């Protein structure tokens, strides 16, 4: 397990995270293995509704627990359960590191 805080540019406009760049943080797809906190979910469409319904609310702590091989989906722990997301889906979720939780 990666003990370093997530390697994510704090203000850069990340690819695939359209509309949320001004909120800071980075896309959930780019976050590392350490837990991060949700800032916002970009967009207003069925996908953002699904992410919302899945429990990715602002303030929620998300932790990546697995990656499928060859750039496949990512697996996260969120709201106490395991949620698999495509990288494009994860990119919609804007997250920021949690300083004191590192490791």
């Amino acid at each position, binding site marked *: 397990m990666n003990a370093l805080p997530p390697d994510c540019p704090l203000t850069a406009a990340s690819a695939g995270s359209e509309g949320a760049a001004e909120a800071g943080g980075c896309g959930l797809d780019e976050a590392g293995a350490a837990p991060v906190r949700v800032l916002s979910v970009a967009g207003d469409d069925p996908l953002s509704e*699904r992410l919302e319904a899945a429990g990715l609310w602002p303030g929620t702590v998300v932790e990546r627990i697995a990656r499928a*091989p060859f750039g*496949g989906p990512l697996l996260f722990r969120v709201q106490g359960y395991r949620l*698999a997301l495509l990288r494009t889906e994860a990119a919609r979720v804007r997250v920021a590191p949690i300083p004191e939780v590192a490791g």
Partner: protein
Amino acid sequence: MSDAAALGARRVALFGRANSGKTSLLMHLTGSLQRPVNFPGTSVESIESSVQVDGVQLQLVDLPGVASMRPQSKDEQVAIEHLRDPARRPDLICFVLDAAKLAVELQLLRQLRDLGAPIVVAVTKVDVARAEGFPIDMDQLQRAVGLPMLLVHGATGEGVAALREQLATTPLVAPAPLGAAVQRGVETQRSIARSRTDRLDSLLLHPLFGPAALVGVVLVMFQLVFKVAEPFMGWIEASQDWITGAVEAATDEGAFRSFCVDGIVNGVGSSLIFVPQIALLIAFVTVVEASGYMARAVFLLDRALRGFGLSGKSFVPLASSFACAIPGIAASRILGDERDRLATIAVAPLMSCSARLPVYVVLLAAFFPASQAGLMLFAMYAVGVVAAVLVSLVLRRTALKGGEATLAMELPVYQRPRLRLVGMHTWLAVRSFLKTAGTVIFFATIVVWALGYFPRSEDVSEKFEAERVQVAARGGPQVEAQLAAVDAREAAAHLENSYLARAGKALQPAFAPAGFDWRLTVGVLAAFPARELVIPTLGTLYSLGDVEADPDEPDQRLQDALRDTTGPDGEPLINGLIAVAVMVFFALCSQCAATLAAIRRETHSWRWPLFVFGYMTGLAWLAAVAIYQVGRLLGLG
């Protein structure tokens, strides 16, 4: 309150997320899963069941799982509409709350309360929540939610009696709106560092071990379908032979006997023969699904299948189709995205199903040495898979273009599958198969029988009768065998004179470029409603009397006849090259009326079954012609 309620009946809808344990709860509530029903005007299937409690008739319906009150898939839409439709609205909603996902469940419950319908909350998976390190404080939860709330245990049925009582007696009053306080996340603190599921996942989702384990699971599935099912299929065949013998003993030679034996017994037998494979397959898929592993397989395979224009969830329908496309097509319902679902349905029949196997086995045994047969058999399966990939890629760039890729799915906690649930699912699937395939294959068999039997020529009968008299008069030790040979030639002569053979001969020019002689063309025609009809038809055409299609012991006589029958020029009618063309034709062609009926049922239009039939037949013909022509140019065959 509805009329039903006034008469001492209550309509109760089980509502909740997918995987919240609704179906097994329904099973415990009523003791059985009585009938799967289609919601009006949809292919969305659900299960209804009822039970009597203290003079109240509880009519329960298991609604499709939803993620939120804003539906995104057809299933979700059906569930939400069922709650809103004034005509079908339940008297009471039983909200099934998965304790292991408390925060998102409370969010959904909040939205559900806004409907104003009475709600009873059944809390499931408290043990899972504890094992995952998020124990539930029921008293606190009860106070916060302020609705009738009961603990139930999906595996043991613990607490179900109390829930049943509550559903029958709870006053039908609208719930008060919920304060905002409840929507507190449960993310706070986990009581343990790693749960059993975390440990299993670190192995089963490992970049190396994960895919290896997946290959193992798929191999076990194929073993079940092709090896374990074999003896059961043998028994069905043996009973079919026994019944045939009994019918033949009880009836006179003629149209009626032929109708009973070749029409009815063969028609029923050729759909029953698939039941062992389908039952084993569904049982296995249910076990994998209920254990929580299926979602992991989808997770691991998603990237690879996306490359082919499919989705990780296509894995289940496509793998099932190696046994039979009908349960495979029904399984495509798990695909949330409509384009993914249609692409999966369109290519599922290209997976070599078990009805193609006897065709491969007979031709391989006749024309290839055992050392090459295995490789050729693998090649036939590969032909279907490669074609499926190409067709799916083309579809996703044309008719099914666009759409954003979606997955967003829960990977559930690993659990021991419950035998009762597995048995119930298997039985429902077998019943549904028998309903679709049983009727369609049965009638198709009878139609093919009639076309192959009529018209009956008196001249032919008289000619062979005269020959029989001669043979009998000559006598000698071989008389029995000689008489049987005459009978077989008579059957062949009648078949050659039949409507089926006339159609075959008329179509012969279309199949000549693939090297098929008219007999093969008739076999192909006979196989259009159902592939399994090809072996008996070829058997009759090559003058063998009745030939059984048994993948275990392909009839030696049929192999010899296929190899030895020669044309007017003395050249064999079939050679290795033509055999490959025939096998590839069968691998790619859509010869199964029941599959087309299943596609019609799942897509609600004739467009898709017609398209599938058209493209597969075209593809099969092109491939067979290409193989024969290129092969001849290369001097093969």
